[in-house]
């Protein structure tokens, strides 16, 4: 069976720059015919570009038991069963502290590598998981049904010419709505194995015997459309098929070659972040990664579940930061965590909490200006039993886009949002 890699190794020598074949190849794997893809990948991408890793806490994380307002009596009055004792909380200041299971995250905070943003939400909050998640993903006002994601709009705006599928990678079976752009939706994979053609069965759509496939003969096979706009759907499909074949090879090569530098906990989030670290250190040109930790919808018997999730969250992020540091990429990566909403102030009768609104966000990484941002919402000044938000989440997005990704946030968010000082 002929493979794509064989074909590329045999045929790319002497192909001029600006050749019309897949962007992926052009951007990332110029040195593909060499034995070691690494040289090509790293030389062409550089190590300077900032990277954002979005960490989604799905299901509505209980913000009050994540960043705990131990100094507010109302916290203990509203949560006789669920409140965390002031003595066990990992104190950040006199007002609030972290859940005792967030030890790794507390260390990051103490070493100046973490920012905590309190009271993040948006006006006219929606308490449906589906709808609120959609609002966070599309970054639209809550009374507008958006479609394209905020990162998709970023991809659309940053890519000139042919879309590059490796701009964004989400770890999971399907791309998040945040990735949905008009031009493309990035790559999503559960693991490098799933981003491969089954049993090595790469389709041979090019034909030919590889040996004499010069750039010219490739052109004859239908690859002669201009790079900017493949004019027909057939051209577009051929190009994307090539992109798929090459990028799946690159992903497999990178993950085979690039190992993690530290051990990660045995959790799923840790496994996903370990893969992200491999891809970053392995030289992928990707600027945005997306990972997800679900299970936060704790309507009943919250404590056990939430403890496990906090431990998983903290352990995975902590290992990821250590790994990136050891691999020499820590300063160009920022992790941003969010959840679609926080939970109600008052616990329910089932030892759980119901859907609420505002909650905390975290940022981690070498480039983060550590500290606490946003005013912690008062538990005495509620709206229908919920905290009032003090920071619009789009201010956090705007700060990441403008000050970290060096990209004009107004082109993505459609208007100006005030910045926070974490970046």
């Amino acid at each position, binding site marked *: 069976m002929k493979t794509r890699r064989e074909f590329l190794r045999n045929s790319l020598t002497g192909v001029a720059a600006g050749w019309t074949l897949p962007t992926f190849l052009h951007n990332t794997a110029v040195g593909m015919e060499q034995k070691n893809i690494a040289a090509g990948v790293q030389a062409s991408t550089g190590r300077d570009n900032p990277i954002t890793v979005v960490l989604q806490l799905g299901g509505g994380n209980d913000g009050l038991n994540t960043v705990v307002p131990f100094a507010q009596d109302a916290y203990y009055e509203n949560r006789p069963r669920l409140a965390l004792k002031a003595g066990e909380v990992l104190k950040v200041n006199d007002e609030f502290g972290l859940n005792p299971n967030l030890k790794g995250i507390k260390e990051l905070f103490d070493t100046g590598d973490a920012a905590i943003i309190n009271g993040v939400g948006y006006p006219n909050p929606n308490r449906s998981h589906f709808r609120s998640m959609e609002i966070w993903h599309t970054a639209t006002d809550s*009374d507008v*049904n958006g479609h394209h994601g905020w990162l998709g709009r970023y991809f659309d705006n940053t890519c000139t010419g042919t879309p590059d599928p490796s701009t964004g990678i989400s770890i999971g079976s399907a791309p998040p709505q945040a990735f949905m752009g*008009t031009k493309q939706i990035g790559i999503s994979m559960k693991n490098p194995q799933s981003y491969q*053609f*089954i049993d090595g069965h790469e389709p041979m759509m090019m034909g030919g015997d590889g040996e004499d496939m010069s750039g010219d003969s490739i052109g004859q096979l239908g690859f002669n459309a201009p790079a900017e706009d493949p004019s027909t759907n057939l051209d577009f499909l051929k190009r994307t098929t090539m992109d798929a074949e090459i990028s799946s090879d690159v992903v497999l090569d990178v993950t085979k070659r690039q190992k993690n530098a530290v051990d990660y906990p045995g959790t799923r989030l840790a496994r996903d972040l370990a893969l992200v670290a491999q891809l970053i250190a392995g030289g992928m040109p990707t600027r945005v990664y997306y990972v997800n930790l679900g299970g936060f919808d704790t309507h009943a018997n919250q404590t056990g579940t939430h403890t496990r999730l906090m431990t998983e969250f903290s352990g995975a992020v902590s290992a990821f930061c250590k790994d990136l540091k050891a691999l020499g990429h820590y300063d160009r990566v920022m992790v941003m965590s969010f959840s679609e909403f926080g939970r109600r102030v008052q616990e329910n009768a089932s030892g759980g909490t119901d859907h609420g609104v505002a909650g905390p966000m975290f940022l981690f990484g070498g480039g983060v200006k550590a500290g606490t941002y946003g005013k912690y919402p008062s538990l005495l000044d509620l709206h229908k039993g919920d905290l009032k938000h003090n920071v619009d989440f789009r201010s956090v997005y705007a700060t990441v886009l403008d000050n970290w990704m060096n990209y004009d946030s107004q082109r993505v968010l459609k208007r100006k949002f005030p910045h926070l000082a974490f970046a």
Partner: protein
Amino acid sequence: MLKPIPLSQWGDVQVAHLLNRAGFGQAPTQGAPDAKATPEDWVDRLLDVPAEADPADAPDWVAETNYSEKMMRNFRDLPEKERRDKLREMQRMNRQHVSSVREWWLDRMLKSEEPLQEKLTLFWHGHFVSSSQKVKVGKHHWIQNNLLRYQGMGSFRDLTVAIGRDPAMLYYLDGVRSKKSAPNENYARELMELFTLGEGHYTEDDIKEAARAFTGYKAGRYADKSTLVARQFDAGEKTFFGQTGNFDDEDIVDIILKEEQASKYITQKLWEYFAYANPEPQIVDSLAATFRDNDFQIKPVLREMFLSQQFYSKKAVRTQIKSPVMWLASLSRVLDLDPFPTRIGTRVLDQLGQELLNPPSVKGWDGGRAWVSTTTLIMRNNLAHLLINGGNPGKAGLGGRIREIPQDVMDSMSDQEKQRIANMKKRSKSVNIPSFLRNESLVAGWQQASAKEKLPLLVKTVYQGPINPASYTSLENNPNLMLTSSDPEAALKQNIYELVAHPEFQLT
């Protein structure tokens, strides 16, 4: 009126194109025209569809007389733990019902008894969207699906009024919460932005006023239909599109449809779904005029479209990127598996980004090039490989969730295959699926074909028509094709995969 295609230009390629676009690639199972049929014969047969549901078609649980009671059981007085268990059981039942509607509908699409009716239902589903993310009750989906199916070719005006009162839509766009004291604008906004006019053809005030006119329709959690609760309806005076009156929902729809933009918006969207993107203005003008002249009936618009010369132009034939449903349908034709195991099929669609009853947002599916990414192409190829060759569904992204091979598929398997499955089941909980290649006439044709005829036979079977010459050359040069093998089954599996994995197969 668009110029109709003359009989002299009518042939196999045009028939195949019509069946691919107005259906899922196959003629209606009953009363399909014969070889000498004219374009009118074909189009009129496709348009001749039943106007109401046959109750015998419904999934069993739909017909349960105590459906609503059974689902409505009140758990509030039960002890905490029992209450939670019951709730969980009910959520599970709701999910099963939604899956059941998905499988039921996919089966109808693949069987193509009325291909155009099903294809149009899929269009309306992507237009008047409701999603299982928010609408949890299977019966609501089933009711809405039938509304789209049996009113989809009739009056657009009546369909639009009905969808505003449809339980699934009332839940999806918050109509159930909308009342005189607090009108919810969600439905009114999407009605104008997405369902009838398009962005920029109305004002924010129009939305506010229309929202008042839509107040008052309520649907119980498991109710079959909504009712107008008079005291929650705002009967007061409204000003909408410059007119003032005590408008209700029907008045709003009638006023919207007086806008020429509405007739253009909907006919352009139909053309883009069935023919190609960005149609020439004269095409839209003509279809929009037909739409208005026929009191907003959909059928005359479809008839003009499917008979028009432009519908069969170079710009249209084999230029459309297959939706996952279309891709699965054409693959199932190649495999010739009837019935196709819909439990597997609906999961395939989910993987490929077109989970039925769950469009990604109220705007439906983007369609076209948005179906294609490196990820979905790898998935399409891996799923095709799995269905053609059999194997571990987990490897193709379907997870280890397939624990049972559907009975109809079991029945079609050889004793050897059955034995293999039985052995596998003894060893583990999940099973590898068998090859779904059942195309006996292809096997026979393959064995009779000379060496020269083999590739043309494959191309005809897999692509249903002539393909781009460069693509054909690339197939001729494909070293992985097995055109001379003495093992026909192995050769066909390998060859069909190669052709299905080729970009040409993504087009219809």
